């Protein structure tokens, strides 16, 4: 097992009116993508800002590379890259200038080629001489990631890097984040996009109201909380559900489709055989695997859309 890059034990951050972080524990291993997942206000950003040395915790322990961030962050600053939440670049600096400037703030004075290499890595070569205010939302985030990489850090914090981006730009950034992992970086990714965490993360911790409500490998969480596989009988409607119920098969109706739940993939074949002999009118039959969205619904008790919990 890889070494622990981040160790958090009983971490708390309390304000007079709210417990933003309320006694959380987790570890992040070297070379993995670890995702803190949760709605707005769950405590994700507060947690990573403590780990980035930007906030002091109320209690508990937070260590990065074995160093207590409260007292020794300066020792590990050069090994950490940060893309803050709602990152905005300096409007009138061009990406080429911004990268060179940011590197100089880490006492690294990059050559033109080194700057060009960083920009190429994040796919901004063609926009290197465009003032940042004229970049698209996705390009601005790429520039932010480029700036976070100028010190060649071992650990990169990406705080909601894709929030507000269109689906295409989000997927482009996913490729970039996977590239960081391929390059051996450890990535801490906070997000409220469940699909993003499921696509990218090796380990996930779901936060709500300052607490981690569950954590683990996405597949394990889905197996543990997601409830297996769902067979969808499209267009079967209420009659289909009643016919199944008459045969002792519990089913639910959702948007005119009948959903039949099976605990393990192995049960799918038998259930399909049962349905086939019932002559239920359907337009399509397909299976749907449980996702982190189902896990989230189970452990939090609500769905999440654009970072907000649905009633």
């Amino acid at each position, binding site marked *: 097992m890889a070494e622990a890059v981040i160790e958090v034990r009983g971490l708390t951050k309390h304000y007079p009116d709210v417990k933003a972080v309320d006694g959380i524990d987790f570890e992040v291993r070297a070379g993995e993508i670890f995702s803190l997942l949760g709605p707005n206000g769950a405590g994700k950003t507060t947690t990573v800002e403590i780990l980035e040395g930007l906030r*002091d915790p109320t209690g508990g322990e937070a260590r990065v590379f074995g160093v207590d961030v409260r007292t020794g962050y300066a020792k590990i600053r050069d090994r950490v890259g940060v893309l803050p939440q709602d990152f905005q670049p300096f409007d009138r600096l061009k990406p080429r200038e911004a990268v060179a400037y940011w590197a100089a*703030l*880490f006492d690294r004075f990059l050559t033109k080629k080194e700057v060009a290499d960083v920009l190429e890595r994040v796919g901004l070569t063609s926009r290197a001489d465009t003032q940042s205010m004229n970049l698209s939302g996705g390009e601005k985030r790429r520039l932010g990631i480029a700036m976070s990489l100028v010190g060649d850090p071992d650990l990169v914090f990406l705080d909601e890097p894709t929030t507000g981006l269109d689906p295409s730009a989000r997927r482009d950034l996913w490729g970039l984040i996977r590239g960081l992992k391929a390059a051996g970086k450890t990535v801490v990714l906070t997000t409220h996009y469940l699909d993003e965490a499921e696509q990218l993360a090796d380990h996930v911790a779901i936060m709500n109201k300052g607490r981690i409500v569950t954590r683990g490998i996405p597949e394990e969480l889905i197996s543990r909380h997601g409830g297996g596989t769902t067979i969808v009988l499209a267009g079967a409607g209420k009659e289909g559900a009643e016919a199944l119920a008459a045969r002792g098969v519990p089913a639910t109706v959702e948007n005119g489709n009948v959903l039949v739940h099976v605990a393990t993939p192995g049960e799918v074949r038998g259930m399909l055989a049962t349905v086939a002999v019932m002559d239920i009118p359907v337009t399509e039959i397909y299976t749907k695997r449980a996702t982190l969205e189902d896990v989230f619904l189970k452990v939090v008790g609500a769905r999440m859309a654009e970072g907000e919990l649905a009633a």
Partner: protein
Amino acid sequence: MKRILADVRAFGVQFMRSRIGAFFAIAFPIILILLFGAIFSGGGTTKVPIYVQDLDNTAESHAFLVALNNTTVVDYRWMPPGVAILDYISSRSINTALQIPVGFEAAVNRSRAGDFNASVSVTLYGDPTQSSYGIAIAAVNGAATQFNFGVVGRPPVVRPATADITVRSLKFIDLFLPGVIGLTVLTTPLFGMTNVCAEYRTRKFFKFLATTRLSKGEWLASKIVWYSFLMLISTAIMFVVERLAFGGSAVITPMAILLILAGTFQFTSLGMILGLYVRDTETAAAVANAVGFPMMFLAGSFFPVDTMPPALQAIARVLPLTYVNEGLRATMVFGNESTAFLYLLITLGIGAILFIIPAKALSWKSK
């Protein structure tokens, strides 16, 4: 040091690409110099126009007008004798008019003949709210005095004489230049830093910077370095424009440079303070204006503090810009280095106090 220089360079590039910032630091002071220089420093007449209705139209009334002309501060124009003077003034929006009555020469002749009761009044019509009216009154009084001495056949006993108290041969623009430099030292760093601090805070740049090796003190220092550099460039340009356009002779002394640097330090720090406490950039602009505009007009940038009413003078004495303006004027115009040095110390003292506040209050960490 390299981090500070990197920050200065990046900040300077952004500043100069912001056309508003570059305009107010470089172009605006030049416009002020050219504008006020053109108004006050020559070219065209500065005489007050007086319309004269000579109802007497005699040799003596003409002699009075010669005396009026000798004052050199008025330019008289004829008004027809047959018109109603008030209607004429009203229909042509005239500011000042003089009426010489019928019987002017007769009264003069009676006086010459020994009639001590002989007298005649010339009437000056004008708007007391206009500054030109005061000049016209003084000119007519002067002409009357000169004419009266002529009538009695005695030369004046007491004659006014003038002596230049400045150490150099100065023009109005030389007196104006230190005020414009002071004004620029106030506005560019104050307005700029208020906005920058508010923007950095609201856009979370401070938080982002906190993840680098750049310290809070280095960031503050880099802003002072940039604005000092900018103010020296701006001053040099203003100085060259004054010399080339108006042949001015004010001198940029080493003490003046120190005062410019101290003033920049002071107002950059004040801008930081304001920027740390305003809510957003829109509020920052309003607050900077609220603090900066009164100082522009009350601290002697455009006219000396000594000419203000006592209450305003008292206010001016607590405004930090007053000491920059007066110090610059002392060293650049009057060559009074000891006064300038005293004002330099005051400026540095205020600057140090203003710097300590943001240095303590600015926190890059979140709470």
